């Protein structure tokens, strides 16, 4: 509960800052917020408790604390990266209040041991996101993205709630442990309510066919929000998905294994096919991140300790890799407003360091050694192969080749293509620099040092 309390405290602190009569300078408040977020991150590693609260509604464990730390870290990095963008913005405390509210929602969702608590957390993490998507106040695209997000989100929540109520009807309880005892694949009502729940998850992680909102919303939102949506929001739901599938719905595993198989293949193939042709960097990353989710689902199909471990490990790697890519894009976008793939032609000539960071991030996303993405993908496949389903593995491997192709297309644009007016030299402020450093170090170290995976694996035993 400590992590939740801390986030709540920060939210209130921000509220007071906003309400106080004294006008804070934007730079000062950004620095203060970053320090607060950093403290929040660090404190997550101490005094970890395990147990349940509120009559079995809320539970916590070392593993959950670790997952929350990953989310904290991601939020901190995003906050550092959005420095240049928020510097020109009038409503800095509000932005962070909204962001931390969603984070709090995710924490509750992760810790939930009850369907209502889960739903509460999910909603708390979704609704403020729509307001965040609208944060480029003057841009029409931004409002459009927010509108689309809130509409789709409401729709999916409605169906999710429908599923929850049916599940309650079928089992007579909302408690996870009690539900787990009563599920069988024979009961069509249970399977159908599970499908509704899965669709709700599918919406949040943008799995095909529940992904349609993704590209528009990613493209329209400010880069910081896009990266928050694609990394933190997705990551948290995936954490929950693994534990819910393995613990609550293990009675239906014969069904959900096939569903995940289908959804995973669709997600990889469609994500990749669309990513091939994108010209906008944000849209490109949006589709490629859809394909990444397809990959993660393979790890989940493994249904073993290794399955969870590889998924959690991969999400951690994905946080670093994707945020590194978004970090560079956000700098370029804040400095020049250019977001097309073609705008990155000749980028190496003017910004060699940023080019390398982006290239390493893309290599990690493509799964090229020695970056962490290579290890992450290999572990996912190894876990998925535990079921002996080689169709899935072969399709996944084929998709890895396709994804390599389009990631290399961007790398080629950066390093090799000529451009008469490349993006000019960008001078990054200190905090985005720190963020880049953390991400790049993360991409390289989490792969080469085996400690991270071993630690996750030990938490699961």
């Amino acid at each position, binding site marked *: 509960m400590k992590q939740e309390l801390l986030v709540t405290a920060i939210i209130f602190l921000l509220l007071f800052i906003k309400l106080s009569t004294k006008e804070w300078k934007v730079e000062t408040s950004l620095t203060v917020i970053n320090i607060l977020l950093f403290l929040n991150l660090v404190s997550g590693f101490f005094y970890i408790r395990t147990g349940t609260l509120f009559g079995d509604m809320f539970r916590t464990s070392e593993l959950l604390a670790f997952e929350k730390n990953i989310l904290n870290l991601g939020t901190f990095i995003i906050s550092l990266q959005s420095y240049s963008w928020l510097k020109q913005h009038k409503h800095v405390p509000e932005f962070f209040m909204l962001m931390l509210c969603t984070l709090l929602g995710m924490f509750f969702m992760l810790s939930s041991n009850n369907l209502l608590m889960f739903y509460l957390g999910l909603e708390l993490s979704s609704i403020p996101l729509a307001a965040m998507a609208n944060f480029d106040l003057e841009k029409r695209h931004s409002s459009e993205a927010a*509108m689309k997000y809130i509409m789709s989100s409401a*729709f999916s929540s409605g169906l999710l709630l429908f599923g929850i109520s049916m599940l309650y009807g079928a089992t007579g309880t909302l408690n996870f442990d009690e539900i787990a005892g009563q599920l069988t694949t024979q009961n069509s009502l249970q*399977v159908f309510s599970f499908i509704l729940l899965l669709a709700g998850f599918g919406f949040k992680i943008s799995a095909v066919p*529940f992904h349609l909102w993704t590209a528009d919303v990613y493209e329209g939102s400010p880069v910081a929000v896009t990266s928050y949506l694609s990394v933190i929001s997705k990551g948290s739901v995936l954490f929950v998905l693994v534990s819910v599938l393995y613990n609550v719905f293990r009675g239906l595993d014969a069904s959900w294994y096939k569903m995940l198989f289908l959804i995973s293949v669709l997600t990889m193939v469609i994500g990749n096919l669309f990513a091939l*042709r994108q010209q906008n960097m944000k849209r490109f990353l949006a589709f490629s991140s859809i394909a990444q989710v397809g990959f993660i689902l393979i790890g989940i199909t493994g249904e073993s300790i290794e399955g969870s471990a590889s998924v959690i490990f991969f999400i951690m790697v994905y946080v670093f890799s994707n945020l590194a890519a978004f970090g560079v894009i956000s700098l370029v976008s804040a400095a020049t407003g250019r977001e097309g793939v073609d705008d990155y032609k000749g980028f190496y000539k003017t910004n060699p360091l940023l080019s390398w960071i982006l290239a390493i991030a893309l290599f990690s996303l493509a799964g090229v050694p020695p970056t962490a993405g*290579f290890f992450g993908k290999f572990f996912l496949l190894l876990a998925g192969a535990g079921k002996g389903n*080689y169709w899935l593995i072969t399709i996944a491997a084929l998709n890895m080749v396709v994804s390599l192709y389009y990631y290399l297309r961007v790398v080629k644009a950066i390093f090799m293509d000529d451009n008469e007016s490349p993006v000019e030299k960008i001078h990054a402020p200190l905090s985005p620099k720190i963020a880049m450093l953390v991400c790049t170090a993360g991409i390289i170290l989490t792969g080469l040092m085996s400690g991270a*995976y*071993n630690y996750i694996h030990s938490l699961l035993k």
Partner: protein
Amino acid sequence: MNYSSYIALIPLLPLAGFALLGLFGRKYFKQSSGIIGTLLLLVSTGLALYTAYQYFFVNGKVDGVYQSITAIKYTWLSFSGNVSIDMGIILDPISVMMLVVVTFVSLMVHIFSLGYMKGEERFATYYAFLALFTFSMLGLVVSTNLFQVYMFWELVGVSSYLLIGFYYDRPSAVAASKKAFVVTRFADLGFLVGILILAYYGKSLDIKTLVENINSTELANITTASFFGISALTWGLTMVFIGGAGKSAMFPLHIWLPDAMEGPTPVSALIHAATMVVAGVYLVARLFPLFTLTQSTLNIVTFVGLISAFLAAIIACTQTDIKRVLAYSTMSQIGYMMFALGVSGYTGEAELGYTASMFHLFTHAFFKSLLFLGAGAVIHLVHSNEMKDMGGLRKYMPVTHITFLIACLAIAGIPPFAGFFSKEEILLAAYHSNKIVYAFALFTSGLTAFYMFRLYFSIFWKAKGPSMLVEAHSPSPLERDWGEAEGPISMKLPLIILGACTVIAGFIPFGKYVTSDGIPLESHFDLVFSIAPVAFGIGGILLAMWIYKKESERPSRISTALGGLYKTAYHKFYIDEIYMFITKKIIFNLVGRPAAWIDRNIVDGAMNGIAWTTGKFSAMIKGIQSGRVQGYALFFFGGIIVLAMIFLYLWK
């Protein structure tokens, strides 16, 4: 006996070189970075040679059998209870041999590049990439664990991508590097699936344990579990072989190799002659105990190898770019190594093929890198890759000429040069196992002699000399010291060393050291048997001499006489075109374009349509809301319905 302390340095020194030159090279070392890289590798080479000496002559053999020694093993990560991922160094005859080959050839290339790449703007970067490549290749050959193999395998791919694309301002180099990366990556997916299948049944990623498990307890499982009527073992190994075939440029995955010649020529000598391209052969040899369990996979290996050897030899006869000739020749020779493995058994007399394959790998490394470096020296002088720009160069570059001739004789299989001995053994192994394979192999060896000497005569004989050289110095060609034309000593020295190796390497009694089961093989030399191959070799040489030694109408007459066949071979049997057709026309048009079309028309269209039918209301607020969201919701709902239908009724 403690190997570990210094053996780890063999791969680690190049890694240090990469880090040092990569991070600081451009700023602080500049031209001296070549020297630094070379010196580090010199130490590595020394250590590798010392290791080989220790292993083969001092303590590798126990009771007359060469042991497989795990010098270092560090459990890097334990994935689950019984699957752990180790990083380690294994010493057995083939890995020790490869250590020597890789470090030695890499050293020669390092030295050669001192002269060849001199004055290049990204000189330090070039040496950093070379060091990275050498490190990856060394890591690959000493792997104890399939994951380690796979990781270094991919790293080798990455570093060769960097090296082939080194001239990144040339579009053709960029395209070539990307092609090589994507094609080999495509093959690697086979490798990956193969590893996962083997690991699933063998219950381990450690090669030794895996082989033991499959040979003993899991054999029944893996051979009975079948998929489309073929056993899991065959599937797994075939998949692994696909990976190997991709790296080793075997038919039909060879299309990247000729294009990869866009990289700097010394790089071709390193990557495309001696090291990376033989990785596939090495992989098959490394997993050979498993391959011998299933004859059907060995047959695939044999025939893919044979087709590659034969096809590439024919194509090589028609190419005019000297590096492409060498590229196809490499493919052909690797084909030899592959089918030699394919016809081999695991123990006793039958393992001759295995030994022969490794022997040919060993000798080929020397003479092929010599040929590439020689070609590099020629290109350095005439600034062209085309045969028609050359001719008569023997006067201008005597050292290159002699060493190139030695290498040509070696590859043509003329005694007493290295190629003769190794090819002889391959042919003998083929003869004992399958007469058809033998016949093709014999004919191919004649072709080899022909195209190599076509190359040789076209470069060094034929005309008086390249017009630019003759004209530029026409007043008094004799006054100039033409030794200069060959470049500095750093370019000549490797040629001489490799030339010497090419002469003596064949006399190593290879069967005594390198066999599949570690028990020395008595090599029996049969004089009568070698008459046919040598006769074919000499025949090929004489034919090439008759056609190409002097400037004449003969080449063009012959090519016209051959007509369609020549044209087909010249266009490399249109294999690239077939691939282009499949990827561009079929995959892009049939899959990619419809997908984009659906995105544009159906999805967007449907959304717009729905928006339109929602009536004028949507038009009123169109500014804020494009109307598509309803469509998204429809899709969402449809998805649920479809899932429910499938999983409640159809696929329970």
